[in-house]
């Protein structure tokens, strides 16, 4: 069940990180209709500009996606490939050392982006296409195991219920992580993600956040995707566009509990929150200390 204390590094393709490093994964959408940016980086050049900005802001990796998570316009395999494969190659050419993740559920897309230089396959629909695991193993890519409660890709929640949402999320993601390891993905390159709001209502996502330490205690590195989601909006009664503060609060709590990777829209703000939590935890020295020491 637990990854235990064997692995203390996280390897994401070309980069290796210590388990105390808190990583910012910047969302880069090659979509027309994602809920937050509404097509702001649909044009390839705009998306490339976004990569340049987030790298400057301190993103450790980018997560490139070609399909909106929610329902909407059908994006078939060919269209998804058109959106992301060539783009990954361009990002790789401009940023040889940047960790590139791709958000996809399709093995065929995973193969194309790994050939183009991707380091991480963020399987946001939780092993829906099991072939994606094998692609990660073949290319030495990292693999994110997401808890979707068996939902088909792009299905919004409708009355999901759980005996214990945290226990279920842990059991399902750890099972997928162990499966990925058996299929040949490197142990230090497997992450688990409780997937806030995916087949979960706001109560479920809040409880996952509150008890994220239980998920971190499995020993598998935990990725969280909290950014501007509905559970933040419903908790505070805030529409999209007014959820950054709530997102950062959830980010701080998650960091305190031990999550390692943060998939976000706001890179600079997240970086600062994570650095502050790390300073409080004692895993990052303060930047410059004079007060009372002069």
């Amino acid at each position, binding site marked *: 069940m637990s990854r235990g204390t064997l692995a203390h590094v996280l390897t994401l393709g070309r980069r290796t990180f210590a388990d105390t490093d808190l990583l910012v994964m910047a969302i880069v959408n090659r979509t027309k209709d994602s809920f937050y940016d509404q097509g702001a980086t649909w044009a390839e050049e705009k998306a490339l500009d976004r990569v340049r900005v987030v790298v400057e802001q301190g993103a450790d990796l980018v997560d490139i996606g070609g399909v909106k998570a929610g*329902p*909407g316009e059908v994006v078939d395999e060919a269209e998804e490939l058109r959106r992301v494969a060539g783009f990954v190659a361009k990002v790789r050419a401009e940023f040889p050392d940047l960790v590139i993740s791709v958000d996809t559920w399709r093995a065929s897309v995973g193969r194309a982006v790994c050939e183009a230089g991707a380091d991480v396959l963020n399987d946001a629909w939780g092993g829906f296409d099991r072939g994606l695991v094998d692609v990660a193993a073949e290319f030495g890519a990292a693999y994110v195991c997401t808890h979707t409660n068996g939902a088909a890709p792009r299905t*919004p*929640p*409708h*009355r999901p*219920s*759980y*005996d*214990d949402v945290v226990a279920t999320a842990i059991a399902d993601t750890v099972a997928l992580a162990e499966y990925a390891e058996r299929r040949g993905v490197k142990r230090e390159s497997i992450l688990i993600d409780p997937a806030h709001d995916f087949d979960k*209502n*706001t*109560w*479920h996502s809040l*409880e996952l956040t509150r008890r994220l330490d239980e998920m971190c205690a499995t020993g598998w590195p935990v990725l969280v995707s909290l950014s501007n989601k509905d559970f933040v909006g*419903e908790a505070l*009664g805030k529409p999209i566009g007014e959820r950054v503060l709530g997102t950062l609060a959830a980010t701080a709590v998650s960091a305190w509990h031990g999550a390692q990777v943060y998939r976000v829209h706001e890179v600079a703000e997240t970086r600062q929150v994570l650095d502050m939590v790390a300073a409080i935890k004692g895993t990052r020295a303060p930047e410059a200390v004079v007060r009372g020491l002069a």
Partner: protein
Amino acid sequence: MIAAVLCPHPPLLFRELTGRQDVAAELRAACHDVLSEALATAPTRVVVVGAADEAREWTGEPAVRRFGTNEERRETDELPLSLGVGRRLLDEAGWSGETELVSLTWDAGDEVVDALGALLRQSTNTVALVLGEGSTRRGDKAPGFLDERSFPFDSATAAALESGDATALRGLDVVLADELMVLGRTAFRVLGALGRPLSARLAYDHDPFGVAYHVALWRYT
């Protein structure tokens, strides 16, 4: 059979699940209004009918914690959602009399539906509380996204409820109902199997969250 009440069964009818604001106040009030009118006929028994994963009689409590709240988890016999909402509505209406809780499957066949309908119709001094709702696909933000066929389907259901057209409800298009994620597929048909009422009232017909909710009262005396 004295009367039959139809209510939807979204989890948000459990007040404690909607948070600081009561987002379903109007719907809950409509359910209370109609149920109170039915219970004012002084039945000796209420039969609660809803769909679930299995067909059987139940005892237990609403399974609210499965959906949320910050309460501790307790070991209890849990009712399926439809019957749990029915049980809660009866509690809120002050009903403490004899209550039977019966589920049919989501895809119950004609024979099962008709058998339960006949049994209820012959019951004396009984109110039936039937739980079910219409399309889950009434908008871009609806749980089932948008399917334009939802609108004529739900309008036809509402018209049948308002006019007491039992035949129309009993004969609803089950294939289309499944495609529109109509969780009231079985409930509507059971109501139809009760036969034409002496009077019918449709008290609520809206879709505030992309799901068609109907609240209705059919009286047989």
